[in-house]
């Protein structure tokens, strides 16, 4: 589904990603861990198409198409979803109107007619129930005055509505208390299927107790330095990142 080859990217001339290789297949959950400043969130931003990031080398294919050639909105319509680390508050845009616009723009992209109001409302209700999302939040402005947990839940609710093929979750666990974490994780688990895939970016192993990954990758200094199964996450939790850093220094050529 997603094939990242030798991806290099820079912000304002500073190299951030320095040759990422990653292959994600349908039905898989990949966790990307790593210390602060290793490039985890940058990877999410590059995949979602944030303008500030300049790809200097490498390629990203999504479902056989060149992802980097697409605008952010086209990526979303093709089925890439970014759950934000900090979902934005947008006063004056109602949650419901926003979702309706998004659903219909995605449908138009696939040559489908706009959804009828009734069908849309039915879908809304069904997903609200599935995601345990408070219906009162639907009628408010997008994320305005929402608590941190409500914003994250709203993002996951949007994911349920838009049914992406690939969801990239950028530190979705940050700022969540244990109850919110449980609800958000349960939501993600309900959405997992053999047809979609998740890339979960996180600092902590804790989230991976709730959303169990197939693969764990460690990002350090703009590169994936170690990959493994879910046991790797436990090892990291136990030993910290310094253990890996020491390993890497030994492997790196002396400059």
């Amino acid at each position: 589904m997603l094939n990242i080859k030798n991806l290099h990217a820079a912000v304002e001339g500073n190299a951030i990603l320095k040759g990422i290789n990653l292959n994600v297949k349908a039905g898989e959950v990949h966790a990307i861990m790593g210390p602060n400043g290793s490039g985890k969130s940058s990877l999410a931003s590059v995949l979602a198409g944030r303008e500030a990031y300049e790809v200097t080398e490498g390629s990203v294919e999504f479902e056989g198409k060149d992802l980097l050639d697409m605008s952010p909105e086209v990526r979303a319509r093709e089925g890439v979803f970014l759950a934000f680390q900090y979902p934005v508050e947008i006063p004056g845009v109602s949650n419901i109107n926003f979702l309706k616009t998004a659903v219909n723009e995605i449908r138009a992209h696939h040559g489908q007619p706009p959804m009828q109001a009734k069908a849309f409302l039915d879908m809304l209700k069904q997903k609200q129930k599935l995601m345990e999302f408070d219906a009162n939040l639907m009628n408010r402005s997008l994320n305005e005055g929402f608590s941190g947990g409500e914003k994250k839940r709203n993002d996951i609710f949007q994911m349920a509505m838009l049914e992406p093929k690939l969801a990239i979750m950028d530190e979705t666990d940050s700022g969540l208390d244990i109850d919110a974490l449980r609800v958000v994780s349960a939501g993600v688990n309900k959405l997992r299927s053999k047809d979609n895939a998740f890339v979960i970016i996180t600092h902590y192993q804790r989230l991976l107790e709730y959303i169990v990954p197939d693969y764990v990758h460690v990002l350090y200094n703009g590169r994936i330095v170690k990959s493994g199964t879910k046991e790797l996450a436990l090892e990291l939790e136990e030993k910290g990142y310094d253990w890996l850093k020491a390993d890497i220094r030994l492997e790196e050529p002396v400059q």
Partner: protein
Amino acid sequence: MTTIATNISLYDSLPELFAEQIGGASYPEARKAAFERFQQLGFPTVKTEDWKYTNVIPYLKNGIGIQLPAAPSLSAAQLEATGLLLPDVYRLVLVNGELQPQLSELPPASKVTIRKMSEAAEEAAFQQYFAKSKKLDEHHFAQLNTALFTDGLFIEAKAKTQVEQPIHIIHLYHSTGNLLVQPRHLWVAQPGAEMQIIESVAGLEQSGTVLVNSVVEAVVTERAQLSHYQLQTSGQHSRFINQTLVQQHGKSLYNNYTFTLTEADLVRNNLNVSLDDERTETHLYGFYLAMGNQLVDNHTSVDHRMPNCESNELYRGVMLDKGTGVFNGKIFVHEDAQKTNAFQQNNNMVLSPDANIYTKPQLEIFADDVKCSHGTTIGQVSEDALFYLKARGIGDVTARSMLVKAFAFDITAQVKIPAVRKRVEQLASQYLTAAANN
């Protein structure tokens, strides 16, 4: 210091015109005094502080007449075709400032007195309040209006009456050449009265341009409530200079909603509210759109003269194309006005490299126990918000348009009359969608 603009044929011709008019005119004393004052002031130039960014002189030059043409007879169908009619309102239709009773639906006389200004001299409230507003003599154009106004509406809501339906005033302008029209109004809400007034405006068939120089004096007496909507949505070939002078007595409430969503070349609004007694409440909301080569200028002032009053002002504007917006908001907290709460906010979006905004929030406080704040912002659409919408599949044009509308709808959401809210939201939406697709 006063700088008098010269070489304006309109200015040069005024003494003669005034001499001709004053013979048969109503209220000659007030007119004479005002004309004298106007001659001292002249037309404002860019050297006049309050007109620094709004050069009105070019608009006065092209041979403007002041002789009103005969009002055309207007059918109900033509009135309907203006698209201005609103449901569930009393309706007062004016052509060039003159009431057209055959097209109007008046509120019950038991609750509201309505007179033409030219026929209101006998009304006690008229005698008490006409041309008495503070700051009237500071306004160049208001003085000219007092000197030469033709007609307008005297409206008086009687004490303790609640006027259930809003009073909708439809101002229509008709010209056969370049024309200066000067309507004059006086509205009084007597103690305990509650009244809502909506003003709409449109040009009838007109040749040449119409310059409207209007003055509204509004008096909200003790415990009275007045909500005032100014829907400035007229077409091209119009210019507007509006003075709205409001006096509030004790425990009164005044709400003003000014929406400038128009194709007129020039709109200058002067809104002055004087809080003359204790425990008043005032809300001023505005939204303006400046596009094409338009100049939209809002000058507001609130004078807190007495203790325990609260005022709250929120104006927002969007500048497009080569449009220019001007906002100036003054709040004066006078020495006696302890325990004042005064807030003011002006936010602007400038969406074209050729558009301009000049904004100046001013706060002058002479009392020491008050809560005041003011602020202004100038910006574009938030990149973070834009990316968030795009990351959900919403295209650039739609996303920008959603965000700009959201910025406007924060103001329209304050409107309490559903039909009015719907109208301004539709208009804002229409203009902003058109702009986004350009």
